[in-house]
């Protein structure tokens, strides 16, 4: 199984402000193999420091192109952000598993926190485009810190689905946490007809997972961990799991998408 694409070209790079960067890459073969939930592992330099690749969820994959959307938070992402159109990058992918789509008659509820948005965007987009799901049946709850992060949500908005935004400071959307929006959605809802998909900071995922498990809602969470190898060999990315033999699961290969009751966050 091929996973190493040592020379993928950068098609386009956009700065969305607030340290948010969107990059699209051209690789017909890789683009065709990517599924919502998958991630790629990118070599940010050919030098030995930073040594490890950086993991990025796929934001969309279309024809010959695929995109990532990330925030500059340290040296690795700083280097990634410097990539120019035409540059060549060494990528491993597709890595990790993918989301289980909702069954007929089930509504998808996405719960996104900050830069946890890309895999949920990819999922929503592919449900609409490939699975013929009516956009209006998809609920997309999106938590951001403030107005400056609003551009994160633009691609979601253009999917024409039911988008609800919360911000920590109330500068855009509802003031408060995205988990409050979820709690509200779950009230009076027929939870047997819902499926929740979530990605974001772990404290947020913990609340989402607990809420869904308590209410008996089917829920998948996508986790982000430090990932040295990304292919299951270093055992560095494990999460505690009550359902696994040795108490752990590797996020890079058994995840990053898990059933909410499979992992202890």
């Amino acid at each position: 199984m091929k996973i190493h694409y040592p020379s993928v070209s950068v098609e386009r790079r956009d700065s969305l402000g607030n340290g948010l960067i969107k990059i699209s890459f051209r690789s017909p073969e890789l683009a065709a193999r990517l599924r919502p939930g998958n991630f790629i592992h990118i070599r940010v330099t050919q030098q030995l420091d930073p040594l490890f690749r950086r993991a990025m969820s796929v934001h969309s994959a279309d024809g010959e192109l695929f995109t990532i959307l990330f925030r500059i938070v340290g040296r690795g992402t700083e280097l990634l952000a410097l990539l120019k159109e035409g540059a060549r990058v060494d990528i491993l992918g597709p890595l990790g598993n993918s989301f289980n789509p909702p069954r007929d008659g089930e509504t998808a509820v996405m719960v996104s926190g900050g830069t946890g948005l890309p895999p949920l965007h990819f999922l929503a987009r592919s449900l609409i485009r490939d699975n013929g799901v009516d956009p209006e049946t998809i609920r997309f709850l999106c938590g951001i810190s403030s107005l400056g992060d609003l551009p994160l949500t633009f691609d979601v908005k253009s999917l024409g689905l039911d988008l609800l935004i919360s911000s920590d400071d109330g500068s855009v959307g509802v003031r408060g946490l995205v988990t409050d929006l979820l709690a509200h959605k779950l009230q009076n809802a027929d939870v047997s007809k819902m499926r929740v998909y979530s990605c974001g900071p772990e404290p947020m995922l913990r609340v989402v997972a607990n809420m869904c498990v308590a209410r008996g809602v089917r829920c998948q969470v996508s986790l982000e961990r430090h990932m040295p190898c990304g292919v299951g060999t270093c055992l560095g990315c494990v999460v505690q799991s009550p359902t696994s033999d040795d108490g752990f699961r590797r996020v890079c290969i058994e995840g990053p998408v898990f059933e909410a009751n499979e992992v202890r966050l």
Partner: protein
Amino acid sequence: MSGIDLSVEIAGVRFRNPILTASGTFGYGEEFNDYIDLSMLGGIVTKSITRQPRPGHKPPRTCETTGGMLNAIGLANVGVERFISEKIPFLKSLDTNVIVNVAGFSLDEYSEVTRMLNDCEGIKMLEINISCPNVGADGLEFSSTAQSAFKLTDELKRISRFPLIIKLSPNVTDIASIAKACEDAGADALSLINTLVGMAIDHTTFKPRLTNVTGGLSGPAIKPVALACVMKVYRRVRIPIIGIGGIMDQFDVAQFLIAGATAVQFGTANFVDPDCTVSAVDGLRDYLAGMNMSKVADLVGKLQV
């Protein structure tokens, strides 16, 4: 290009080239079978196998550092029984030399695992990870004194039907004297180095970055230390040395051979590029051709001082 001989021999075992994978960085081999042709490699070393299964330490278990990483995986492995029933059948099918790494927390544990592996087909050598604390006794690592390293090697030599590689720790005052003790006890080869003890601290929370507080440092950052260890040990013993520590490409391989190693292991590099070992095999051939050399074995110990 043709006519270049990459083969080396260690304790009567022939390796098609001097490039092996390091314990704990290559799983049980099967994890990489999807990505690379394992028959291109000189050999593979499994992760450390212990008497009982070990789940490993609580996360976070790894942390990136300048030019390297810290790990405190905690010798997570399936235990020798499941290793024999579930992993050996695959390893046996491989067209490369399989070396099983053995670890334990008492002399008895090492002995028992070694004895159980005696009945397995498909193993070429054992590598003994002696960087483990002797829990029932003084609690010091077997690797930390010449006496304890001698005693362990001597005991396992009596049991094992396979040639033994003793894997040395750099966290000692004089690695060469420990190497000598292992040779005196009958070790067939030595591999070095294991990781260096290190730690990383988050200055905003005052917390260590690893749950285990300290971990083992590996990667390019440790290469100079490893090269010096190989040279010192080469000057002291006659048995073959397998060099380990920060090796990323064919040039690093050449440097370790020049320092005195007969073969090398790639560890952390596998995490950066799953196919780094295979690329280095090709690269080594090109390097030798460029140096007008026809045999990789001719590099061994050729340091000019």
